[in-house]
């Protein structure tokens, strides 16, 4: 055997040893990073920061939030895909990069299912169709009738082209056979301002951040996208009740690069599930309108795959 070959074999062995996943007992051995696909400050970012504090306390290593916003969350997802599956890189996974972006940007560069290990479910928020107070419409039927009578007259906002609000709105238009003008915004904040001011009459937006507007009487929720009525808006019917096949949840979870040691995944899922029962966490989640149904790690992985295939045709239709 030549020296060169010996060296090659040795280095290959060293490489294999270093790539060998950390054993679950030792995990975590060093600080763990959580990639967040939003800039700091939004509610999803806060979820990550809050959970990071508790995870750090329980698992004995700091959990550090790294904001990698950009390109519909694909920047963060790509960074996660390229990270080592050694249990020290996770992402606060959510609807946009895993259910919408891969269809919206066919060149996104990752497969939302096979390139990742989807570890744990955190919860989700639903969206609603809101009408501004000045519009004078208070029920979904009135809206559909109004939109039928004057196609293209009504304006509705979403938090951006390719946002879940936009995709749901396109689906709404298709199944109700109505036509309204889409006014895209950059995020929910400026859109809320214009809904309040009556610049736009309607918006498709996540429920929690609009609850203050509802309480003030500035925004009237016409229907919600949850499978059942929401605790926070018990009087508002679902789209399903109105006979419209429209369910949409912006889910949040923890995901890792593909090939994560199942023992580490199980340990993280257990710890998170435990944290999520703390009264201070449940109170905070209620406050943010994050709805949680029990779901274990395996069920969550199936859920992500399910969501991806459910959203793909809707995204295609909205393009």
């Amino acid at each position: 055997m030549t020296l060169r070959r010996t060296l090659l074999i040795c280095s290959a062995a060293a490489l294999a040893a270093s790539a060998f996943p950390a054993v679950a007992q030792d995990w975590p051995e060093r600080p763990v990073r959580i990639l967040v696909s939003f800039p700091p400050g939004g509610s999803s970012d806060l979820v990550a920061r809050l959970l990071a504090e508790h995870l750090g306390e329980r698992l004995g290593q700091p959990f550090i939030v790294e904001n990698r916003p950009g390109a519909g969350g694909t920047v963060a997802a790509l960074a996660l895909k390229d990270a080592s599956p050694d249990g020290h890189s996770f992402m606060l996974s959510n609807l946009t990069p895993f259910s919408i972006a891969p269809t919206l940007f066919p060149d996104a560069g990752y497969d939302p299912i096979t390139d990742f290990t989807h570890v744990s479910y955190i919860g989700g928020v639903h969206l609603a169709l809101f009408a501004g107070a000045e519009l004078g419409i208070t029920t979904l039927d009135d809206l559909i009738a109004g939109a039928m009578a004057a196609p293209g007259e009504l304006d509705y906002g979403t938090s951006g082209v390719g946002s879940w609000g936009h995709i749901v709105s396109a689906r709404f238009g298709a199944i109700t056979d109505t036509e309204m003008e889409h006014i895209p915004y950059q995020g929910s904040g400026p859109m809320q301002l214009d809904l309040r001011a009556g610049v736009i009459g309607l918006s498709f937006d996540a429920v929690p951040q609009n609850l203050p507007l509802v309480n003030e009487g500035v925004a009237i929720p016409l229907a919600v996208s949850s499978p059942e009525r929401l605790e926070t808006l018990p009087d508002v019917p679902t789209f399903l009740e109105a006979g419209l096949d429209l369910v949409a949840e912006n889910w949040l979870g923890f995901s890792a690069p593909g090939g994560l040691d199942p023992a580490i995944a199980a340990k993280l899922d257990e710890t998170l599930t435990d944290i999520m029962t703390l009264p201070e966490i449940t109170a905070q989640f209620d406050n943010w309108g994050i709805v949680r149904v029990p779901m274990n790690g395996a069920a969550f992985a199936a859920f992500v795959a399910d969501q991806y295939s459910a959203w793909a045709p809707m995204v295609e239709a909205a393009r």
Partner: protein
Amino acid sequence: MELLGNLALGFAAATTVEMLTVCFVGVLLGTFVGVLPGIGPLAAVAMLLPVSFHLPAEAALILLAGVYYGAEYGGSTASILLNIPGTPSASVTALDGFPMAQKGRAGVALVLTAIASFVGGIVGVIVMALLSPALAGFALRFGPAEYFAVMVLGLVAATVVGGRGIVRGLAMVFLGLLLGTIGVDVNSGATRFTGGIPDLRDGISLVVVAMGLFGVSEVIASIRGNTRHKVSQPLNWRSLMPNRDDWSRVPGPALRGSAVGSFFGTLPGAGQTVASFVGYAVEKRISRNKDQFGHGAVEGVVVPESANNAAAQTAFIPTLTLGIPGSTTMALMLGALMIHGITPGPRLIADHPSLFWGLVASFVIGNLMLLVLNIPLVGLWARILRVPHAMLYPIVAVLICIGVYSLRLNLFDVWLTLGFGLLGYAMRLWRFEPAPLLIGFVLGPMIEEYFRRAMLLSRGDPLVFIERPGSATLLAIALILLVLAALQPKKLLLRLLKSA
């Protein structure tokens, strides 16, 4: 008086030992991150956010807010000393602050900056205390057409920033506008001018452009020894202090700058950078010392600093009373409130009076602290100029890289900043000003977004900009400014008199 009662409540809430401590820590840290080029309040506020979970809501907000407006004080220091703005909004301050330093008046410029910042901060707080509820309503009456009009006005006003002729200024404004179109189009979702580079999909960050054009280009120039050479700064206390002529040129510009800044601060998204540019442009139009602008005019330092500090305070009005954050840093502060179960909105002042008025009181206290903190520091900062360039500039370059990288943890941004540094250096060689480029870059995307939104809402009818009185008035002012700039009536008059 209800206001006095509210203020009493606020001061009672803000003068406990704990609140004073967090306020001091906040403004101190803010000054520090403001001084460091590239590292801005966003990084500091993000790092402090977890700390704020463990504080009461009032203390958390006072701390984070202190970092935010403290950074506006510090941002001008490097502008004046090194021609490298610490924050994008301090870019304008370099136009006259750096020439002052080159004349050996760095200390004077820093003292005036601290005072102008204080005036701006206090005016901003007064506006906030008196007008918050009314101004919230005002922002609501500002539809897309009015936003478009005010941004156009800002752009027209800002073309006179920089002193190398209107054609060169306009060329740079247009280059800025073009750079602003890079990234996803808000209305169609199509990516534009990214050359297929995914990192450009969200456009170029303002910090990248500002730090590249102003900061890196200055570092490059220093390698060639191309910085107009070092001037020894007198360090005795007397020569640090402004003289009588300087003082006489402070009050008017400071108040005008504060007024402009207070206005732009209340518009979500417009922010401090636009405020300081427009303030400078307005002052340059009306000042008697017009010719000195760009060569170390006192007004050229006072106006932008009073404007960006006033805007930093009034930016809290839309954030707190409408729940609309004007910037990512503001979004973080909203986040700190949300963690404590407080939802910003029109009911915030009524539901949480001690939070709102405590914050207002802490602004007054914080601005006083900053004034007291900054004036003794002037001597120290002025000494920085004695550090050999061979040591100082590499440190600055490293700080810029760290600051830019910390924005999105993206190495691409660092390379892009270096690219803008080369562009800035080339512009310097061919005598183009970077300031008009920056303002075009800031305003371009907003002008486009609001213009297209207004046109979408009017179904393509451009009359919407003339039919609405607000936008019609603003556009008329912009047109008059443009005509005046093009015709230069004083020169015309002089020519007529001569020929007669």
